[in-house]
């Protein structure tokens, strides 16, 4: 058990009410900035993957002000309510989708010292439970819109997300089982010594559980290739069809916040939480520099979380979408057995393996995982250094610079070809 973890500014607040208000404001600002940043970032990422630039004009640098500007625009939009919608529920749905994402962040640690609520010993289960509430909002949105497409979106959401919660939950229990705690703070504190101590590399089952968890979490936060509840080419916009303006934006805030929560959760459960791969931060903690360690740890945590969010975006802009029966097939026939095996397997491993065997496994898995990670980094670097496989011909770049081609007499065509 690490020493108590606390969120600094609120250690000594004068009264609980002030503390609560300050916390709520800071917290809301944090969520908004996070979501806005991700929206901007996703635009830039998608644009660069599609050989475009994305927003460039709003704000001074790379269109950074695009998200706030969009927010203002959405605030100013007319608040449309379909005539036949169940109006109170239609309004409620947007908040119901947003609040769980907001609430889950409460117990999410940023590093050993930075966590909003520290006395939660079951923070893992709490986050999981709160995130599962989001479905209700989405289903309600689909139902209250009184549109057939929205209803399809709602039903798909219910099928898909509820189903994927099972493999997600099972694969998330495997690291909890290995550490022996449901507290994210404790799970995180267990992986400090270095890359080989990251839970993902502890045993082969956890290695598999990482991938199961990551893909199931994609499905359960409706990211592509599992974005069936809102897929625009089939269901117009699914449960979002009838939404507009700020209420529509609420769903997006929720989605992007959940993306980060999933990313941070993956980092804490499998990828060494707020510790760097070389044990430097743990060394700082042991040397008594707990504040420096906490700040550095928060930085590492944010980098890890953002990296996973980036991978989510990368997948979204690369892969086509699955069909609903394929989504369910993957869940029930692949991930469900796989996650059961990872849970049972890592329990058995805990019981049987040890000593040299354990160390060798850890080293092998670490090498394997690092090699895989480096391969993807290399792919990305190649794409950045050498975009595409050919250089854009001069047609676009030079054509308009040239004087308009004078009509060439047929006889001159031959020599024109020679010097062209």
């Amino acid at each position, binding site marked *: 058990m690490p020493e108590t973890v606390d969120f600094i500014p609120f250690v000594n607040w004068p009264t609980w009410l002030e503390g609560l208000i300050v916390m709520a404001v800071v917290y809301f600002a944090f969520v908004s900035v996070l979501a806005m940043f991700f929206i901007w970032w996703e635009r830039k990422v998608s644009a660069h993957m599609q050989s475009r630039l994305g927003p460039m004009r709003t704000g001074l640098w790379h269109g950074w002000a695009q998200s706030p500007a969009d927010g203002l625009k959405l605030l100013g939009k007319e608040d449309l309510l379909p005539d036949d919608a169940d109006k109170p529920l239609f309004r409620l749905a947007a908040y119901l989708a947003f609040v769980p994402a907001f609430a889950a962040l409460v117990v999410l640690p940023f590093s050993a010292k930075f966590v909003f609520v520290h006395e939660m010993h079951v923070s893992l289960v709490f986050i999981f439970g709160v995130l599962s509430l989001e479905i209700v909002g989405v289903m309600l949105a689909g139902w209250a819109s009184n549109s057939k497409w929205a209803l399809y979106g709602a039903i798909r959401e219910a099928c898909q997300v509820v189903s994927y919660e099972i493999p997600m939950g099972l694969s998330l229990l495997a690291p909890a089982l290995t550490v022996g705690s449901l507290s994210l703070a404790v799970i995180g504190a267990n992986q400090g010594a270095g890359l080989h101590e990251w839970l993902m590399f502890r045993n082969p089952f956890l290695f598999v559980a990482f991938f199961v968890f990551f893909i199931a979490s994609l499905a359960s936060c409706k990211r592509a290739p599992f974005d069936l509840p809102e897929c625009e080419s089939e269901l117009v916009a699914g449960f979002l069809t009838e939404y507009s303006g700020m209420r529509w934006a609420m769903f997006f805030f929720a989605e992007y916040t959940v993306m980060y929560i999933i990313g941070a959760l993956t980092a804490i459960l499998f990828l060494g939480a707020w510790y760097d791969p070389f044990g430097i931060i743990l060394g700082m903690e042991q040397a008594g520099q707990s504040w420096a360690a906490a700040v550095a740890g928060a930085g590492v945590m944010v980098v890890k979380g953002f990296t996973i969010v980036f991978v989510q975006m990368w997948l979204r802009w690369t892969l086509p979408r699955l069909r609903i029966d394929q989504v369910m097939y993957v869940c029930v026939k692949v991930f469900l057995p796989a996650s059961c095996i990872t849970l049972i397997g890592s329990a058995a491993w805990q019981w049987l393996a040890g000593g040299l065997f354990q160390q060798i496994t850890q080293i092998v898995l670490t090498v394997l995982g690092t090699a895989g990670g480096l391969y993807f980094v290399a792919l990305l670097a190649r794409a950045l250094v050498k975009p595409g496989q*050919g250089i854009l011909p001069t*047609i676009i770049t030079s054509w308009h610079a040239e004087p308009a081609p004078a009509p060439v007499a047929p006889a001159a065509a031959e020599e024109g070809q020679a010097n062209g």
Partner: protein
Amino acid sequence: MREPGESITTPGMIIPDPVNVDALREGAGELRTEEMIINMGPQHPATHGVLRVILRTDGELILDAIPDIGYLHRCAEKIGENVPYTQFVPYTDRMDYLAAMNNNIAYCLAVEKLAGIEAPPRAQYIRVIVAEMNRIASHLVAWGTYGLDLGAFTPFLYAFRERELILDLFEALCGARLTYSYMAIGGVRFDATAAWCDKVREFLDYFEPKIAEYNELLSFNQIFIKRTANVGVIPPDRAIAYGLSGPVLRGSGVKWDLRKDTPDLVYDKMDFDVCVGDGRMGKVGDCWDRYFVRVLEMVQSARIIRQALAQLPAGECRAKVSRAFKPPVGEVYYEIENPRGQLGFYIVSDGQAVPYRLKARGPSFCNVSILREIARDCLLGDIPAIVGSIDVVMGEVDR
């Protein structure tokens, strides 16, 4: 006065089999309570324009999908019967607006045959070059939007990046980027310069390696294959029975291409292959086959353009035809291979300056008719896959 129970319909309106409301009310007998009738379109992201598909669904299962057309009807044929022959060329641009060059050529060839005009050889070669470039541009749109239909956003932008270069070339050639009106009866309006030809070669050098990239990105993506293989299978006999043509027909394994089988222009001097679906990923005639035929045809088009550029003769590019010429009395039906299939024009002349009757046979119009048959018993998510693989352009379906 309507009889009670009589539904409010307009003539020709398609009414799917109704849900039995009485059974719902009485609660008797076997119920099919989950049936729902949905309009997919005319405003829908996946219907490529204003195609309306009336879906009768049982949950995700499609029981029936009825294409309903006519939202873009602009009386193109009737206009054709009221303007002189030369003035109808711009209207053909607006039929299949993604392949305007090919439409122009089809109409001009029909009129030329009717009037006994022969375009000079250079014009014929230029026609082949622009037709094949437009085929590439059209297939690029089909390829990109097909990815979009299946949820892959990125291919669309890649396709449009390359298509943009073709449009630039067309702009340089004739000044227009979408509706070219480049063909004239008896030739082409502007000659291609040598510099332009070099630009086309440069484009081909750039474009041909890109196709490997497309395949890597989309064609051989496992999710894409899972989405398209064995979906919307059209057996060859059904394809012929429905009068399908173009990549949709060839996707079913039928080796039929007017460029090879009834060569017009100078296609008989070109060396190229007719690509057919071979059921590589599933059954012959599934969505993947239709899709991949288009990818292969882009390679063949590039081959043809290279040959045509190499053989391009010098000379005039337009025969002398008077502005309001009057073809002799008679009728003609002429069809060529468009990117989407066989586009034919049937023209009846009574010796006047305007056609007596003009009728177009659009490939998309015939191709979309198979939708109801192959979209039965599939899932809702397959509908965009099927509609996209048929690749209809509503401007030409409705005309």
